[in-house]
């Protein structure tokens, strides 16, 4: 798996992400500066990491989404390439038009930094094949704007097409209001594009991949991507 991690001013999770990718694939990820106009040759996964690109000025992810490298990412995605956006990366993918909807201020206004439980809704995608459908995983979140919203028609289409891959839930997998930490529509934590090759999610699977982190539930996502790309190769 040849991954490229995008780096914008104000991003701060790119090294965590690169470490998780190395752990899963055995290869160093290429770090790609936002002003680049092309991705490294042979890239088969683009990762937009978390952080505070451009200090969250204007709207979270808005300015990063208009940077030169995103044109290359749009083209890469249009050709079917895999794109993963985490946290600020999810916001950037929404702002860039690669995913529908928007991440609004958390419903209760607070920045939320804690472990949450996610229900994996299906296992037959590159981004979830390392898990079983219905499996509950524990991963951290750290965001102030993670409240996923889209118009009713769009949310319904996401549901009908099975594009909600991760949902906030209780420790035993129940999706309810109490576990919906930020007020997201339908407890949405992660969605894929219509073609299924672009995933955006608010939680940080890259921060639960080693024993020293106290939990390794995030490994499945990266292992699944490696397995998918090996099979495709």
């Amino acid at each position, binding site marked *: 798996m040849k991954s490229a991690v995008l780096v914008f001013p104000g991003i701060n999770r790119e090294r965590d992400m690169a470490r998780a990718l190395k752990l899963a694939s055995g290869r160093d990820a290429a770090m790609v500066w936002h002003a680049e106009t092309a991705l490294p040759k042979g890239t088969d996964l683009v990762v937009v990491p978390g952080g505070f690109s451009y200090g969250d000025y204007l709207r979270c992810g808005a300015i990063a989404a208009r940077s030169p490298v995103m044109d290359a990412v749009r083209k890469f995605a249009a050709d079917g390439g895999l794109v993963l956006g985490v946290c600020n990366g999810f916001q950037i993918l929404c702002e860039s038009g690669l995913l529908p909807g928007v991440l609004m201020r*958390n*419903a209760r*206004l607070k920045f939320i930094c804690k472990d949450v439980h996610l229900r994996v809704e299906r296992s037959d995608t590159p981004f979830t094949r390392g898990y079983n459908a219905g499996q509950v995983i524990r991963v951290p979140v750290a965001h102030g704007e993670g409240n996923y*919203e889209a*118009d009713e028609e769009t949310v319904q289409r996401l549901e009908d097409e099975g594009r909600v891959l991760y949902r906030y839930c209780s420790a035993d997998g129940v999706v309810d209001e109490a576990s919906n930490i930020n007020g997201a529509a339908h407890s949405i934590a992660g969605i894929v594009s219509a073609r299924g090759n672009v995933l955006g999610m608010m939680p940080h699977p890259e921060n639960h991949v080693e024993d020293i982190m106290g939990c390794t539930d995030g490994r499945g996502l990266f292992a699944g991507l490696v397995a998918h790309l090996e099979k495709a190769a």
Partner: protein
Amino acid sequence: MKARVTVTLKSGILDPQGKAIEGALKSLGVDGVASVRQGKVFDIELSGADRAKAEAALKDAADKLLANTVIENYRVELL
């Protein structure tokens, strides 16, 4: 030429910041506040004097960057 672009949330979009401001105004005892919706104002200086061109450029700016038209409306004014 001076211009102002005002960006507001579409009606029906939850505005927790507006709600918090509304609550603060009420607790300050400001009279008669029924509800608050917050937004953004951009004061922009344009070179050139063609008003039609300026308006087109400002709309372009709002569509491309200043507003997220999924959740926001905008208004362009030449001052």
